[in-house]
Each structure stands twice: as structure tokens, then as C-alpha cells.
């Protein structure tokens, strides 16, 4: 049985490495439960596992895909997790009950539609959006497909629900499109010069951001048709994080496959004509970013194997660093901000406690 070997090691007053574990294959995605007590993991070999505090972070197999398990989405309220794989299947699993697994086959006869690219629950938990090849589905918690769209010019790379839950944004070749459940049309509202591969909506839903294949980023202020176009990235901007600490100015942190984190300040609207701030502390590509809501902190992890806590006190300062070994591929902060799970490219996962919590 795999799981975490718990050997707490205090790294600083704000960060403790609780433990770590090795698996047979690499983690491709992770998602925390709403109560922060369980962490779902998706693996390259197709397994979907659950680690929970109740089992002292030991792993339980939830499902197996017939190809890499590529994406995961924990339900925002219930003990339900959705996993999507390269096999074109979605598993909807109630992880509080053994064996409750609804299986949906979203693949079609067309070869290119056979993999799941992204899964996102709406904030109210009523709808699961699934990107499968060049199609998008909206599914309910019972596994019923409520609607699908298939008019996208390429693979749908990323999905995001508008905070209000009535609109779904889709990133594909040519830009961002808006979908409205109940309406069959696709509105290509936010064109880009090349394929949009990532998207993000600001917490106040006043800005939309796309990361593009040509290493540019577009920002649309709500109500404006013309985007602000940020270029000069050396890689593709595909990791976004919006600041959430109430006393901090609205900021967008961007990782674009390089060692620097780019911070854009949205305090006076879109950062037109402003130079962004760069946070330098990694020696390898930054792979994941997350702002905290309870503290003015930004967490980053990268291929240099470093997990860094950046703290804002009259500017961003590099705080606690951990470098347990292995290049980090991703990281997820639990909703209660007590835990951080970070996984490496050599099939290891580490669990951290933030702010001294155990």
C-alpha cells in the first residue's frame, strides 16, 4: 500500500514538511477536497488514488483509466471527485463510499476526441465542465450529460467557470469562447493571434486572461473588446494565480516555463504600459503558483526542486525554501490553506503544513 511516510520536519516557523512518499508512476494532477481532509491524485499509469487525513495519508485506489489519468476535479461541496483520462472516460466517484463510481465515455469515433484535457466544477457544484478533445460537455452530479458543444477549432486546452456559474469560458485555437449552458451557440468573444492554451478569470471577474502558444498573454478588461497583449515571455504563459489576500493590491502572478515569476499589478486596472515585477529565486522553470487568502503570501515550486514561500512586506521577499530533492512538477494548496501537496517528476509527493499547523 502506497502513501506518505510521515516524518514531520520543521523548516521554519511557517512551514513544516509533514512527510513524503514514492509511487510507481508520476502524478499528473491533484485536487483537494472542500474540507481539506482528502487529496485525490491522478497518475500517468491511469490510477486515481485518494489520500486522506483519516487514513494518516495512506493511499486508496478509487479508479483506473485505460491510459494516463490526466485531470481531476474535487467537488466544491460533496465527497465527489471527477477524473478524466486519455482513454476518453470520466469517472465520477463518491469517495466516501466504497465502489460508487459512475463511468462516462466521452470519446467518439473520431480519434482526436479521445482524451480528457480539463475538468472543472462550477462554484455551486451543480455542473461539471469537461473538455474532451475538441468538444466540451456539461455534466451533472449524477453523471448525466446535460449539453455538449463540438464546434471548437482545436483541442480545448482549458476551461473556467465564471464565478457566477452561468458562463463557461473555453480556451482553444483562436482564442477564448464563451458558452452558456442552455444555449447551443459558441460565442468566439475573445480572439487571440495563436492558440489559447490557458485561461484565468480574476476573483472579481473583471479581467480575463489567456496564455497563448506564441508565448504571449492577452488580458481583457470586462467591457473592453480590445485586449492588452503582454509579450516578451521566453515560454508559454500557462500558470496563473490571482492575489486573494484582502489587503493586498490585485496582482496576477504568471509562470511561463522559465525560472522567473512575473507579477502584474492590476490596482489601477489593466497594467497598460507598466513594467511587471519579477520574482527571482528559482533556478529552474516555475511549474506552479498559488496565492494565499489568509496571508500575503505567494507559493511557488519549480523544476529546481524548490518550494518557495514569498512574503509581501513592503515588496515581495523570498521566505522559506524547501528543496527535498527531485524536480517539482506541480503543487496544490488545500482550501483551508493548512496543507500544501507538491509532486515531483520522479513520482514522489510531499505534504507540507503551513503556518505551523499539523
Amino acid at each position, binding site marked *: 500500500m502506497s502513501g506518505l511516510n510521515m516524518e514531520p520536519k520543521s523548516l521554519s516557523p511557517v512551514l513544516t514538511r509533514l512527510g513524503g512518499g514514492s509511487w510507481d508512476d508520476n502524478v499528473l494532477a491533484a485536487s483537494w477536497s472542500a474540507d481539506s481532509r482528502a487529496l485525490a491524485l491522478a497518475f500517468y499509469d491511469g490510477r486515481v488514488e485518494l489520500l486522506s487525513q483519516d487514513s494518516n495519508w495512506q493511499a486508496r485506489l478509487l479508479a483506473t483509466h485505460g491510459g494516463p489519468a*490526466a485531470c481531476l476535479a474535487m467537488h466544491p461541496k460533496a465527497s465527489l471527485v471527477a477524473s478524466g483520462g486519455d482513454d476518453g472516460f470520466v469517472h465520477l466517484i463518491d469517495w466516501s463510499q466504497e465502489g460508487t463510481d459512475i463511468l462516462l465515455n466521452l470519446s467518439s469515433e*473520431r*480519434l482526436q476526441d479521445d482524451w480528457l484535457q480539463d475538468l472543472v466544477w462550477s462554484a455551486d457544484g451543480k455542473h461539471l465542465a469537461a473538455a474532451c478533445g475538441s468538444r466540451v460537455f456539461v455534466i451533472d452530479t449524477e453523471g448525466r450529460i446535460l449539453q455538449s458543444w463540438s464546434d471548437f477549432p482545436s483541442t480545448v486546452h482549458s476551461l473556467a467557470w465564471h464565478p457566477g456559474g452561468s458562463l463557461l469560458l473555453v480556451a482553444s485555437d483562436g482564442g477564448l469562447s464563451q458558452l452558456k449552458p442552455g444555449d447551443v451557440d459558441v460565442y468566439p468573444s475573445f480572439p487571440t*493571434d495563436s492558440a489559447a492554451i490557458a485561461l484565468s478569470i480574476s476573483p472579481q471577474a473583471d479581467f480575463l486572461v489567456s496564455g497563448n*502558444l506564441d508565448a504571449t498573454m492577452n488580458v481583457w478588461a470586462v467591457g473592453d473588446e480590445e485586449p492588452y497583449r503582454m509579450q516578451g515571455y521566453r*515560454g*508559454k504563459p500557462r500558470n496563473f494565480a490571482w492575489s486573494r489576500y484582502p489587503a493586498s493590491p490585485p496582482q496576477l502572478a504568471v509562470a511561463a516555463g522559465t525560472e522567473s515569476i512575473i507579477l502584474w499589478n492590476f490596482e489601477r486596472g489593466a497594467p497598460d504600459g507598466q513594467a511587471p515585477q519579477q520574482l527571482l529565486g528559482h533556478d529552474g522553470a516555475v511549474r506552479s503558483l498559488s496565492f494565499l487568502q489568509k496571508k500575503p503570501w505567494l507559493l511557488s515550486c519549480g523544476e529546481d526542486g524548490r518550494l518557495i514561500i514569498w512574503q509581501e512586506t513592503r515588496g515581495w521577499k523570498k521566505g522559506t525554501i524547501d528543496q527535498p530533492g527531485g524536480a517539482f512538477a506541480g503543487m496544490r494548496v488545500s482550501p483551508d490553506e493548512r496543507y500544501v501537496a507538491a509532486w515531483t517528476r520522479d513520482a514522489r509527493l510531499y505534504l507540507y503544513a503551513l503556518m505551523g499547523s499539523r
Partner: protein
Amino acid sequence: METEANRIPVTIVTGYLGSGKTTLLNRILTEHHGRRIAVIENEFGEIGIDSELVTNADEEIFEMNNGCICCTVRGDLIRIIGRLMQRRDRFDAILIETTGLADPAPVIQTFFVDEDIRANVRLDAVVTVVDSHHVLQHWDEAHEVQEQIAFADVILLNKIDLVDESRQADLTRKIRAINASVTIHPTVKSQVSVDAVMGLGAFELDRALAIDPNFLTEDAHEHDETIGSVGFEIQGELNGGRAQNWLSRLLRDQGQNIFRMKGVLAIEGETERMVLQGVHMLMNAAPGQAWRESEVRKSKLIFIGRQLDRQGLEKGLKECLA
């Protein structure tokens, strides 16, 4: 970015429908050569692929710059190679089998343009399988046939047991007229040594040094071919600024018709050769081997493409002489 040695080599296998691509793949995969190979397949063939690491793809062309064909890349390859890199410790090389009707350019350009791809993998060679028995039936009506030959570093002239010697010689001549610098291996049932198709480093800049001057003569190409090769060897040094301007202008204006370009330039005042590798409008250039003191400095360039203007190209190159 990974070091050159750490980047995974990628071999692209092209060829018209039924030419023997999948047979070649299975030969490579079942031969005891010690390499662990991941395969990216673009279509379900009648023949299964014998490998644990097979990923299916479908052509997904992304325009990078307002519809310019030279800036199109293959989105499916970016996605799949990105996913494969998650378990890069489990294979040593990647083989991409394109569809019989695939345009090789976006596949190749993906390895020039995409930063994530460039960071992890390197294009090793383009191998084109040609069906000796049937290729002439498609020669004129299917532009893919000639384009796949034009982009190739290696050609397997396959099924030669089904044609006589004069047909084989005729085909070889027609292939050379399109792609003067390609290496041709006559084969039966795609039987060829793995070393003849993998580990070639054909896109490494140093390989541009291997241009055979014999291919560069006026006789080596036919003027009546729409797609063909033209090559030049010119003694003396080039003015660096003029050469750069000429190449930039040439690729900007005619890049759509230039499929591949390789060259070695002698630049005035430089102690090393300047080596070039290009696909359509995209070009890599870097200093190469140093000139010896007694060596006669000369530049060699070969273009493979459509409707190439030999006289114009030669005039442009000569105007760069210092």
C-alpha cells in the same frame, strides 16, 4: 533547457499511403538495438504497432502568426510530447509516424518553433518511405508525394522487388531531382538497419557541413520539376551583413516555397564556418568548424523547394561576396 545529449531524439517517418511506414516502424521496434522507443501514431493502420508506448494523434494545425503557413505547428504533437516527457526516463527515442497525406512542414516546424519541445527533444531526421511500385501513379496528382521526398533526410525506396532495375534507376533520378542531398536506401519490406534511419543528427547544424558538392552542380536537378533542389558552391568570403540581409529577405519573400535549406558560409573576418539549417521561413544559424589557415574559403548552400529560381538565388548569393 536540457543539454543536447539529454534531449530525446525524434525521428519523423513520412510516406504516401501504403508505402510501408508501419512495416518500418514494426521492424525498428522489434529489432534488438537496445533503444527504448516511444511511438506517436497519426492514424490507425491495418497493421498494429508493436510497442508499449504508443500514443495516437491527429493532425491539429495551429497557426502561430496570422495564418502564415511557415508558422504553423502541430498542436497535437506539442500536447503528446509534453505528456510523454512526464515519463522520459522510460524511453530513449521517439518515432512519429505521420499520415500518408500529412504535410511534413508543420511537423518539422514544431521542433523549430515551440520552446517546450525544443527544451526536451531534438529532431533527428525525416525518413520518407517511397513505394517503388506505385509511387509514379501518385507523382503528379498528389503533391504530398513530392513534398514528403523534398523534406526527407533519408528515403527508403521500398518494394524494389516489385520493379525492375531501370524503373529503380528512373525513380532514383526523379527523387534526386527533387532532393539532391537525400540518402537513398533501396529496401524490400522496409528492411533496413536501424542505424540507417535513427541517430543521424540530420538537423544538427554540423550536418550542414556534409553537403556533397557533387549534388550542387547544374546537372543535378531538372528544370521541369515543380519541386526540386538547387545548390551552389562559391569561392571567396561573403560580407556578413549582406549575407544576413539577403537570407532574411529571401526567407521572408520566398520562404513558403523553400522547404529545406542547408548551408555553410565563409563570412569575411570570421575564423569559423557559419552553418545554417532552415525549414520554410525558420532558420537556425551558428558558428561551426574553424577554417584552417591554408584552406580555401568557400560557401555551400542547398535549397529544396518549389519553383526555385536558380539564377536569382545565384545572383543574390554572388552579390553577398565581400
